[in-house]
């Protein structure tokens, strides 16, 4: 049996025949440029001088003292250009697309962070850009829609299905099939058919590589726990990857429980989902007994997705990573907590990771270390928080 692009039994290439040629071309190009000295130099230069890497690893002293347990460090991906970890993957993929001679990139987006990052990289490198976004998400994240347009991208509201991230992926896949010659699909997470989960992870693993060297410098030892939020799972796999072989480091993914993992309104794929085949990959999905993908809910558009990257499914099955569910209310509380305690406004997505760290830290010793990946900044979520709290801010 062909094991191309598998993580254990997960992953694979479950797409129409018509896309396979493109996926093979992309894989060959990626494997070539991955080891190409010019490509590596150009990407490193973009990461450093355009995105602002390395991002800081910040000791959250006030939070540590307030919780009274483990020492807490925040990996500040929110400080990257465009405000999240998404830029790491996008710079890699858009540079690759350009090397492949593509003149146009397309992308799906949930919260808009990946769309903004893609529009940014396309503007920088002179490529045409079209972003597909669920109509429901264009409402939740109107500011990001305008931001993408300012950057020169076309934004296409998706009105099929639940009008959220899953449907945006469907439409972007459809668009790709109709126009493959000049177009590269910049998938925003470690999802989709091979080579995307492997390639996106490799562009994101810089997060864990930096954490490792930064924490060794600050503390002289590895952390005990790394926590990241999980939607598709790109910031989490980025934060986990370099620690997978370090058995002493616990890896925890915080997924969205929405109104509660035991209510119908959640996006807790690992907690409630079962293995299936969707969006080009075998992985865990929120679905019913007949294999129909079920609508999900999360206050955070970026976590509002019924699937998860195949590598996470594998890490869960082999017990190397643990996945926990955090509700909308807990995430909002953690959002406000980090604002007050540390003067940092985290993305609602990242707030899920902060929320679980708040529960975990007090149960740990003072000489232990937790690293929370703050995957993005929360400026885009201010209006959502106001709405959740019933505050009228005259948006």
């Amino acid at each position, binding site marked *: 049996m062909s094991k191309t692009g598998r993580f254990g039994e997960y992953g694979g290439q479950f797409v*129409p*025949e018509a896309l396979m040629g493109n996926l093979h071309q992309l894989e060959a190009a990626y494997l070539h440029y991955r080891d190409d000295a010019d490509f590596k130099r150009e990407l490193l230069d973009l990461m450093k001088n355009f995105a602002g890497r390395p991002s800081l690893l910040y000791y959250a002293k006030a939070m540590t003292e307030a919780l009274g347990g483990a020492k807490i460090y925040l990996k500040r991906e929110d400080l990257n250009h465009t405000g999240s970890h998404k830029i790491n993957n996008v710079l890699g993929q858009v540079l690759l697309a350009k090397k492949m001679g593509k003149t146009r990139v397309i992308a799906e987006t949930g919260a808009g962070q990946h769309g903004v990052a893609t529009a940014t990289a396309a503007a920088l490198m002179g490529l045409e850009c079209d972003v597909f976004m669920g109509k429901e998400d264009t409402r939740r994240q109107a500011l990001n829609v305008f931001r993408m347009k300012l950057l020169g991208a076309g934004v296409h509201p998706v009105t099929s299905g639940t009008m959220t991230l899953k*449907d945006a992926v469907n439409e972007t896949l459809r668009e790709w099939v109709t126009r493959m010659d000049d177009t590269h699909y910049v998938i925003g997470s470690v999802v989709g058919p091979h080579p995307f989960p492997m390639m996106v992870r490799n562009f994101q693993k810089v997060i864990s590589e930096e954490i490792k060297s930064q924490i060794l410098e600050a503390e002289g030892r590895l952390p005990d726990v790394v926590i990241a939020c999980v939607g598709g799972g790109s910031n989490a796999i980025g934060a986990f990857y370099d620690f997978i072989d370090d058995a002493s480091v616990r890896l925890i993914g915080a997924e969205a429980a929405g109104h509660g993992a035991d209510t119908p309104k959640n996006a807790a794929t690992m907690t409630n989902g079962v*293995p299936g085949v969707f969006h080009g990959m075998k992985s865990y999905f929120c679905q019913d007994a*007949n294999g129909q993908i079920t609508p999900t809910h999360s206050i955070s558009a970026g976590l509002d997705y019924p699937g998860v990257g195949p590598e996470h499914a594998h890490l869960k099955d082999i017990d190397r990573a643990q996945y926990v569910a955090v509700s909308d209310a807990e995430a909002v509380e953690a959002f406000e907590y980090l604002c007050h305690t540390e003067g940092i406004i985290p993305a609602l997505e990242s707030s899920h990771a902060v929320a679980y760290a708040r529960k975990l830290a007090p149960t740990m010793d003072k000489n232990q270390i937790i690293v929370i990946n703050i995957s993005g900044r929360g400026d885009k979520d201010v209006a959502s928080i106001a709405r959740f709290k019933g505050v009228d801010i005259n948006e």
Partner: protein
Amino acid sequence: MNRLAKAFEKKKALIVFVAAGDPNIEATQKLVVAAAQAGADIVQIGVPFSDPVASSPEVQQADQRALAKGCTLDQIFDMAAQIREKVEIPLILKTYMNPIFVYGKTRFMGKCKLSGIDGVIVPDLPFEEREELVTVCTLHGVARIPVIAQAAMDRIGMVAKDAEGFIIMPMLDAALTKLVKAFSPLPCVVGLDAPTAEQAREAVAIADGLSIESAIVRLVALYGANSVGHVKEYIEKMRKILI
């Protein structure tokens, strides 16, 4: 000779796609029987899926209507078994991979055999992933029918040689048809959403049959449970064009 090979014997085959469960499963049963009586040689029964990424907008909407009515695979297998008592033509299930996977691959193909389903079309199962179904399909005598598009030009030989039953090409392309036929002795049909009379004639001039992918779905969307007469009339008309 099996039912699929027989369908292509001595004439150009007319294949129609019907979306199961739209407007309801009883209506689908009547439509399939009526299609056979009106001269369809093979019927593709579409299994509704929440996210049919490779289907036309018409089929997507039909799937949504069917799912809203609670259409399930068990209903479709029961329906197929009842249809099989009345008609001899081959019945094909067109389904995405997830419903098969979640139902259980062996259970799914076993049910196909029991209810008289002759083949499956799985749009999101490319050649590289065929091992998912090869063994179970062979075991239960269910043909794996591929769709070969122009974009996959360099893959044609590989996919065509692996095909079973027949091959669908979703476009009017004489060169492509010729190429596919060079690699496979199986019948090749042209799949079109809602062909005009001229396109239908052209399709059977270059291939062994015509597969109509969306026209019936459109009629059902328009006439609902009262669509049987309209569908019959449409198929009779297309049948005459193909002869």
